[in-house]
């Protein structure tokens, strides 16, 4: 079975510092996508960043970047210059080739401390 594991239920970081959220996954597919979603207290699920498995270059979106290690099946999210608005639950997800092949981790609750 395909799984996504986030081993850090809760994390905190000082404002303006850098934090890394971990994610590992297990899949037998060769072609897949990986995602990080942010869910603030408003409950809206917001796509933060996406990585295509066939691309070796790590994806970057402003202060958010990933460290994608395909052989290790690891997909961590780095948030630089953390801001109070980054306080949220973060979900890692892996998408396969059919509509029901999309797997979420259980989430990491991140608190940015002023």
């Amino acid at each position: 079975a395909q799984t996504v594991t986030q081993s850090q239920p809760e994390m905190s970081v000082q404002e303006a510092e850098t934090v890394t959220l971990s994610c590992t996954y297990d899949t037998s597919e060769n072609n897949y996508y990986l995602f990080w979603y942010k869910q603030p207290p408003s409950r809206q699920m917001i796509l933060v960043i996406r990585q295509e498995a066939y691309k070796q270059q790590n994806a970057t979106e402003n202060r958010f970047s990933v460290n994608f290690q395909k052989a290790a099946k690891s997909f961590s999210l780095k948030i630089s210059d953390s801001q109070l608005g980054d306080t949220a639950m973060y979900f890692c997800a892996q998408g396969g080739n059919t509509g029901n092949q999309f797997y979420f981790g259980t989430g990491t609750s991140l608190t940015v401390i002023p």
Partner: protein
Amino acid sequence: DAGITQSPRHKVTETGTPVTLRCHQTENHRYMYWYRQDPGHGLRLIHYSYGVKDTDKGEVSDGYSVSRSKTEDFLLTLESATSSQTSVYFCAISESPRGRFFGPGTRLTVL
């Protein structure tokens, strides 16, 4: 942001009553999905659609049915609501099976 709306945004109903949640998109995406989110379970797929009138079950489909008669609308129906269906329901859309853009969610309480 992807153009997805869900209605209603909040609903309180009683056990045994039928409930229909609506998802509407303006992106003309082929795929639409219904998820539920519960503490300790994350997001779980209920049903999804890969085209008009083409739907399939997800991992928690019991007690739910769906319909998609137009590209832009995907309806989720609870034929006879139960307290175990109290949850936050998210609709999502995508061009391909490999992505998801989520709607704002519907909080459903079944008393």
